[in-house]
């Protein structure tokens, strides 16, 4: 295994009134690609949000260590600056904030990304081109009135701009047509090629994985990680579904 970038030990978490994740242990090495699969409602997105530090969820036990630092108690903004990125399944609309102001602000607050207006514009132009995005998007309000595909492209734009060490893609492929899926896949590929970052891909759709070299696959059922294996596990799930894992989830729950 490569140098450990993310190490989750004995993690249990949930909302104020509902435990969702139970005793999660997961390690992601620098530059690795991991895939997290599982039936609907298994807790996959919750795990992504908990790693990101979403304040809607509380960690009740266990720890999250990222890049050698225990970030369990750290706020999401600090984790983001440390190099964690979560691509939202349903990106939030922020009326009144032009996309430009948002992108420029989140880049300028990172010393490693701070640059002149001209160079920033060039970077945006290059990435927009990769993602088939018209630059007129920059003057529109953040995610407001965007189609599902456009929102996902904006998430990819942020991913490529911020160059995080770990990108968690929460069902980035959901609701995309074939063309949009191809563009998003190109974005993920570009992230791997340009940034050499680690990926935790939460998905139901193996098409998004076709152009990726997957190192590890994990299966989550009822808030527990019940299986782990090489990339071939994905093909097994594709062929046979989650049936055989659901029993394991119930057993662990009992």
């Amino acid at each position, binding site marked *: 295994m490569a140098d450990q970038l993310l190490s989750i030990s004995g993690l249990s978490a949930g909302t104020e009134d509902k435990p969702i994740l139970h005793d999660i242990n997961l390690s992601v090495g620098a530059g690795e690609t991991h895939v997290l699969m599982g039936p609907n409602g298994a807790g996959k997105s919750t795990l992504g949000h908990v790693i990101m530090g979403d*304040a*809607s969820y509380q960690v009740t036990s266990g720890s999250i260590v990222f890049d050698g630092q225990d970030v369990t108690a750290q*706020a999401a903004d600090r984790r983001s600056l440390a190099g964690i990125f979560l691509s939202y399944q349903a990106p939030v609309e922020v009326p*009144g904030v032009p996309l430009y*102001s948002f992108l420029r*602000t989140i880049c300028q607050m990172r010393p490693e990304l701070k640059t002149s207006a001209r160079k920033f514009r060039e970077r945006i132009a290059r990435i927009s081109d990769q993602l088939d995005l018209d630059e007129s998007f920059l003057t529109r309000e953040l995610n407001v009135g965007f189609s599902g595909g456009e929102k996902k492209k904006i998430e990819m734009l942020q991913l490529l701009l911020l160059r995080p060490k770990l990108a968690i893609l929460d069902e980035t492929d959901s609701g995309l047509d074939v063309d949009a899926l191809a563009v998003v896949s190109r974005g993920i590929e570009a992230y791997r090629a340009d940034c050499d970052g680690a990926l935790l891909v939460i998905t139901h759709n193996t098409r998004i994985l076709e152009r990726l070299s997957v190192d590890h696959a994990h299966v989550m059922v009822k808030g527990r990680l019940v299986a782990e294996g090489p990339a071939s596990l994905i093909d097994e799930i594709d062929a046979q579904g989650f049936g055989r894992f659901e029993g394991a989830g119930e057993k662990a729950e009992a």
Partner: protein
Amino acid sequence: MAAQTLTGVNVPPAQTWNYLRINDISLELPTVVSKGTVPSRLPRLFSQMECGLGKEAVSWIEASAGDARYVEVPRGTTFEEPILVDVASDGGEVHDLGVLLREGASATVVVAARGTGTGAAASSAALVRVIVERGAHLKVVEILSVGDGNQHLEGLGIQADDDSSVEIRQYALGGARRAVGLAVDLAGKGASLRLDSRYLVGGHDLLDINHVVRQRGRNTRCDIVTQGLLEDAAHKTLRETIDLVHGAKGAKGNEVETVLVAGDEVVNKTLPVILCDEDDVAGNHGASIGSVSPEQLAYLAGRGLSEDEATKLFARAILDDAAIHAPEGVSLACALERAEQVLGAEIAHDAADTLGLEPTNSEDEEASA
């Protein structure tokens, strides 16, 4: 300078309890000095138009301006250059403009009220009345940054005939006391209005807004989106009325305000009203008042912004948005000057540099004209 008190400014069509102190505003203004007997050049059809401020304030502006400027856009033509009202607030300038957009014409009107407020406190004003004939298109951009210490009155009255469209972007960015009135009469069938209003109020400044839209024509459409940020001990009153008049069958009106309160001593008052005297209409209003929503905060935090930084982003966003939508050099300079005061020079010019916006000033424009 002798002063007079104007009462009953910005009175909405339907009022509420007086003890709420939201029904109007009173302003101390300089006593009008006679400008002689020059008759107004505006055709009489402008004289009865509402502009939201109220008759007394309109009379004060008309008398203070002394004369009015009239622009007629001929039938079917498009004015490529915006019709500019450049108000030097430090000098207490008062402007009165009437525009007639003939059938199928298209034009942009820009009001840029700007000042530093570094000298003696001044009171400026702009009154713009526009008649939009059948099938014509009007765009209005108002950028108000009159300087700390200065007071400003802004009135905008629009009458829209059949199948005409009106698009307004209103930015109230700075000034000690600002009263902003707007009245749009969607008189013709199929006439439409889109109003985006943004405000930024800080310190002990006061902003008083009265938006009135009367939907009289069938199948008219009105969408008002108001967003603002209140900081420190800012005082803001927003009255927003959509009046669905009898006979306006199929009319739809929406109004929504999102205000971010970021100061312990902020006074924020909102009076959203939908008047309805017709069955076959739809009217909606909503208001979101308080801090950034938890979902938005979580999203912004996931990109590295703390709650405090998210609030600053909203301030920057309003100023960037004004710069992005300023259609010509004077209004852009006005937006950038205010951005410099609020955000500092580096950030203020960042958007302009990145997006290729080039500010000019009125002297440059005059020289090139």
